[in-house]
């Protein structure tokens, strides 16, 4: 039963890859000049994703198996207060890679009981406050700009996180 599910998933993936290849081929035909650059960027992204997606998956698997809900609730849940916010922010600044890798992680966090504000803080930090990224930013845009942007974005992320949580609770 499990292997049946697995082979269906793999088949879907193969079909998907074929469609993707066709789209890329058409792109090359219709936009010969522009597609070069977009291919280059796609390549960059692919490298980033391949470098970080597998370990992220394994970490999520390990976390799923070893970290009980109670722990997540305790450190990231509704009652975790300031520590939870800081922890989420810290977690978001560590990794590298595009933001959409963070979405599955964030989804899991929500499912396991983290509060909405913390999850949004995590996402916001991953999106624009990643430490590896800030290094590159200082290099190309200068220390002054980077400091201003980081501090302002830090504050903005907090606002965004708590307003989003408020809005999310308005359902009830």
């Amino acid at each position: 039963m499990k292997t049946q599910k697995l082979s269906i998933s793999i088949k879907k993936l193969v079909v998907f890859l074929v469609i993707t290849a066709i789209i890329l081929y058409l792109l090359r035909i219709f936009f010969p000049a522009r597609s070069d650059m977009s291919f280059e960027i796609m390549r960059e992204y692919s490298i980033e994703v391949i470098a970080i997606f597998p370990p992220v998956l394994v970490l999520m698997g390990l976390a799923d198996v070893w970290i009980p809900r109670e722990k997540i609730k305790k450190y990231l849940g509704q009652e975790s207060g300031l520590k939870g916010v800081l922890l989420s922010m810290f977690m978001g600044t560590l990794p590298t890679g595009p933001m959409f890798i963070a979405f599955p992680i964030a989804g899991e966090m929500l499912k396991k009981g983290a509060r909405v504000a913390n999850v949004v803080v995590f996402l916001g930090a991953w999106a624009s406050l990643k430490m590896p990224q800030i290094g590159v930013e200082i290099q190309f845009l200068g220390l002054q700009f980077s400091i201003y942007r980081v501090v302002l974005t830090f504050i903005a992320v907090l606002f965004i996180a708590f307003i989003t949580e408020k809005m999310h609770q308005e359902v009830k």
Partner: protein
Amino acid sequence: MTVALIINTITLVLLIYSFTKSTGRTGKSLKIALTKGLNLAPWMIGIIVLIGVILSFVPPPVIEQYLGGEMTIYQVGAAALIGTISMIPNLVAMPLAGSLIESGASFTTIAAFLTTLTMVGVVTLPLELKEMGKKITFWRNFLAFFFAVVIALAIGILM
């Protein structure tokens, strides 16, 4: 890349540690990782391809055209919008932004562009909706866009 290396190493170490503590649980966690991976792989590939398609229509040279030059409120708005629909890796976006500043673009515009580039994602919406739900996705992106403009204006004043 070094960060990626560190993350991979840490993951490997944790995996080995988990293996010594319980082979059963480790096997289970790998199975979870694999199923998740197979489920998410189409999304990842799809997003990257979509990014490529959009960039074919709005490639970096065109972006430079819109973001360089005179700063007006329209330009800041345009910068925010362009950042919303684009997704460029940081390694590419930073040098691009740097060269724009050098050729005279205003910091306000660039700040708007960079903030929405990373925080708001039209291309990634489907995945975000799937993982986070409608409410969070809408509010997070909407607020991120709003604050991107606020940040941009603040930076304009500060610099």
